[in-house]
């Protein structure tokens, strides 16, 4: 053993001599290796950290460790980053209880959360609608004998103010384009509503006047937006138990057994909040959190421009008193004598880097208290209209119980794009039957005198004639004939808005009935692969066609991000080390050719060929090990610094990938080991050809040389 060590020592001494003898070459080769190994350490540490953070984001928000859905589905399940409004076309799983029971037999499974993903356009109502609804309510109360005269007058003032804003708008449009740009009917309606007579006559026929305003004026106010909402129907209790990063931000969670809707805080801010206020928030965040400036950032400039041009949304909310209040406050704040409040608001929103913070503060302290910042408020009822699977429109009214966010992912749209609703309402919107609907259909059937008939006997039932003599070859469904239930369900869906906001349901329904997919939380995440196979096997055993996919796949394109980054990293590393391999190889070949006499001498005095190969391998490994070691150490240092400082998430996508505002990458032994392993393998490989050359050197070379 000792002899081997001494021999190795000689080999090492000779190898190092060669490195020092051609130090420039060594430095160039070493530099490349150093950079490569540094890149591997930093790169793999970053990718691993992003992978871990992202998996935390995805697993902790909505995907769980594993998603299970019906294997016969047309599409693949993608719970995140899908561009389809309605989500993937998944075949239903008829009985969640059976699915849950099957999955829970797998030892590594901790819990299964029922889910269904879909999307809907939700009319959020415009300001005029809201104001008119309030006025109608007051009129009703007055008719019922309540003394609400002052309130009615104030509300009337407000509506007149709105009509005034619309009238000014129409006059502007007329100036910019021409009178024809506005239809005569619309113009006439606005003129009529602006006329003092209309308002003096209002009290004579308040309901008739309201009808006119609702039908002819409200549609002219273009601030009504449809909200595009993607939502997950689920068992809220199981959901919040399994996804412990979920927290209620405003309001409360949906009580057990109640129907309801929870806005994602992100959606609530992005879509429901007053646009000017939301842009002001974005401007402030970009400056404070990401260090951007309005002066340099075109995106921020665009936001400022939009805000200065879109003050109507605020104007429509103001009654006469508030207009005066706003005028005074704004004149003082921006030092202007302008009397037109919409112009004052435009000027107020024309912020720059110098005044943004002050104006932001002023907006929330002085103006916002007089405004309705959110079009839908906690406690409001939301009418969700969705297309069912069979294509008809189903509407359900749901109470908004609150907003929620996933801790650490508040600013991420990927984590925040999905809202939550109870599973029972989801099933109804998706066109699945619920006990309530079944009851409703039964009632309609009973009142219409309908009964179920066998498809084969339809003719005889309809036209009489006893037994069907052609029944044997008459099994085909007659074209155009559908069963009564489908017909009724469709009719009911088209005809009726289902007012379910206050309805309770039996919580047991959550555990039964239809779901589209289920999120599985596992006990040991390292065993995901095995657990997926076990789940599919358990499904098969229970007669279910279950398909299990891991969180990465379930998250769609988002989950592939890390794989993509990893591929880019590995390709870069491959290129760098391919270059290193060629350069080391060339350097060693040259060194070998320069040392033919020495190698010949070694052969002559008794060195076997493998000794020479070993000498060159050691030489390459020495360069690789030394510079690879320094590179890895530098890489580890960089990762340590990044860990201490944190890499800021520049936008909401990175926010999601980093699972928070900053990524604090961690370094594992594997990162360094991979770097060193690559370096050593490449070094050893690059010494193979020079080694072969050296082994071919004849000991005769020793006899032919001069020192």
């Amino acid at each position: 053993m000792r002899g081997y060590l001494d021999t190795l020592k000689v080999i090492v001494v000779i190898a190092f001599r060669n490195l020092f003898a051609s130090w420039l070459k060594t430095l160039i080769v070493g530099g490349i290796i150093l950079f490569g190994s540094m890149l591997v350490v930093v790169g793999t540490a970053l990718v691993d950290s992003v992978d871990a953070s992202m998996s935390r984001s995805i697993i902790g928000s909505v995907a769980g460790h594993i998603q299970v859905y019906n294997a016969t589905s047309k599409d693949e399940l993608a719970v995140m980053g899908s561009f389809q409004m309605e989500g993937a076309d998944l075949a239903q799983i008829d009985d969640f209880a059976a699915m849950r029971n099957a999955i829970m037999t797998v030892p590594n499974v901790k819990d299964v959360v029922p889910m269904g993903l879909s999307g809907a356009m939700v009319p959020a109502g415009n300001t005029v609608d809201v104001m008119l609804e309030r006025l109608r309510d007051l009129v009703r109360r007055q008719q019922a004998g309540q003394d609400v005269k002052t309130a009615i007058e104030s509300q009337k003032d407000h509506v007149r103010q709105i009509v005034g804003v619309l009238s000014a708008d129409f006059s502007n449009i007329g100036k910019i384009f021409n009178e024809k740009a506005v239809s005569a009917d619309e113009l006439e309606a606005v003129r009529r509503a602006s006329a003092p007579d209309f308002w003096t006559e209002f009290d004579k026929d308040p309901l008739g006047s309201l009808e006119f305003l609702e039908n002819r004026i409200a549609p002219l106010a273009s601030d009504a937006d449809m909200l595009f909402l993607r939502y997950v129907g689920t068992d809220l209790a199981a959901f919040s138990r399994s996804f412990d990063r979920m927290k209620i931000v405003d309001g409360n969670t949906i009580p057990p057994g109640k129907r309801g809707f929870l806005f994602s805080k992100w959606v609530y801010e992005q879509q429901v909040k007053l646009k000017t206020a939301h842009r002001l928030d974005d401007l402030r965040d970009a400056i404070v959190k990401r260090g951007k400036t309005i002066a340099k950032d075109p995106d921020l400039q665009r936001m400022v421009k939009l805000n200065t041009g879109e003050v109507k949304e605020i104007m429509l909310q103001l009654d006469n008193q508030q207009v005066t209040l706003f005028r005074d406050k704004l004149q003082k704040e921006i030092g202007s004598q302008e009397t037109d409040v919409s112009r004052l608001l435009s000027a107020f929103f024309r912020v720059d880097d110098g005044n943004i913070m002050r104006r932001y503060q002023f907006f929330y302290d002085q103006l916002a208290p007089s405004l309705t910042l959110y079009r839908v408020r906690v406690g409001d009822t939301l009418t969700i209209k969705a297309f069912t699977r069979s294509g008809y429109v189903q509407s359900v009214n749901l109470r908004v119980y609150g907003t929620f966010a996933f801790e650490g992912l508040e600013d991420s749209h990927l984590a925040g794009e999905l809202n939550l609703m109870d599973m029972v309402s989801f099933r109804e919107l998706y066109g699945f039957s619920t006990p309530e609907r079944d009851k409703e259909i039964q009632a309609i059937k009973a009142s219409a005198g309908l009964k179920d008939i066998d498809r084969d006997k339809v003719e005889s039932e309809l036209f009489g004639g006893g037994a069907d003599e052609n029944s044997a070859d008459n099994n085909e469904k007659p074209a155009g004939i559908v069963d009564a239930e489908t017909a009724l369900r469709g009719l009911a869906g088209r005809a009726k808005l289902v007012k379910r906001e206050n309805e309770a349901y039996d919580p047991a329904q959550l555990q039964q009935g239809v779901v589209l997919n289920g999120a599985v939380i596992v006990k040991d995440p390292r065993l995901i692969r095995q657990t997926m196979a076990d789940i599919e096997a358990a499904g098969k055993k229970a007669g279910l066609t279950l398909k299990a996919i891991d969180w990465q796949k379930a998250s769609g394109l988002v989950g592939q991000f890390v794989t993509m980054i990893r591929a880019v990293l590995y390709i870069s590393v491959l290129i760098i080390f391919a270059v290193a391999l060629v350069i080391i190889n060339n350097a060693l070949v040259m060194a070998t050719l320069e040392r033919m006499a020495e190698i010949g001498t070694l052969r002559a005095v008794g060195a076997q060929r493998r000794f020479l190969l070993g000498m060159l391998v050691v030489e390459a490994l020495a360069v690789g090990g030394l510079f690879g070691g320094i590179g890895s150490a530098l890489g580890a240092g960089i990762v340590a610094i990044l860990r201490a400082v944190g890499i800021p998430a520049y936008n909401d996508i990175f926010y999601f990938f980093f699972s928070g505002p900053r990524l604090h990458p961690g370094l594992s032994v594997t990162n360094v080991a991979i770097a060193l392993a690559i370096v050593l393998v490449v070094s050893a490989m690059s010494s193979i050809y020079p080694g072969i050359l050296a082994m071919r050197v004849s000991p005769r070379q020793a006899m032919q040389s001069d020192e």
Partner: protein
Amino acid sequence: MKNIVSVKQVFKNYTLGTFVVPALRGVSLDVEEGEFLAIAGPSGSGKTTLLNLIGCVDTPTEGTVQVAGNPTNVMSDRQLTRLRLHTIGFIFQSFNLVSVLSVFQNIELPLLLQRSAAAKERRSRVEALLDRVGIREYENHRPSELSGGQRQRVAIARALVTRPQLVLADEPTANLDSVTGTNILDLMKELNRTEKTTFIFSTHDARVWAYASSVVRLADGQLIDRVSAEEAVRVGGVGGLPKSTTTAGVRTT
């Protein structure tokens, strides 16, 4: 006495492109143990080729070479290398020391390759040789810090450290001045006498012949004769040998 080297009807051809150049043409030679044999001849006569064949660094095209009873023409490269390591010591015209290693390490190198001697034994053997060749005080020097004579002493010590039966020296004094050359020859002769090591060296320096027990004379790849040192000196150096009939292309280096 037993033969340490036995060369029988050896031919050695080298191929240069399409030309076949004969370097040795039917040489036969026996060398007894303990001899101090000089191989003489002008440049291109085949001295180095013969030495290469005896030193197992080359194999004959035809004929047989036996070294210490081993038929080299049927041995593998690995076996030949082992034979060189354990049986033969080499002294080169250009010393061929490993420049990065110290004097001590250069001498120790063959022992390390043998992997048979423990560190302590290696040290004692190297030190004994350092004393013997008179360069003890230079043991930590690099070859570049030594004179030509000192380097050749290191080379001699390296050749002898494995206690070989045979030492081959290719023009050992060619790169040395006459005084140093004489000293080196004295040293080799003394080692031959005391260690009973067989020495075969190639030279075309007539002064060297005087040290030899016998001189083999080569010309044009053929063995002319084998004479005593006195006879060789009497015949008169290289000039006393038959004129080279070397033709263009014959290579004996």
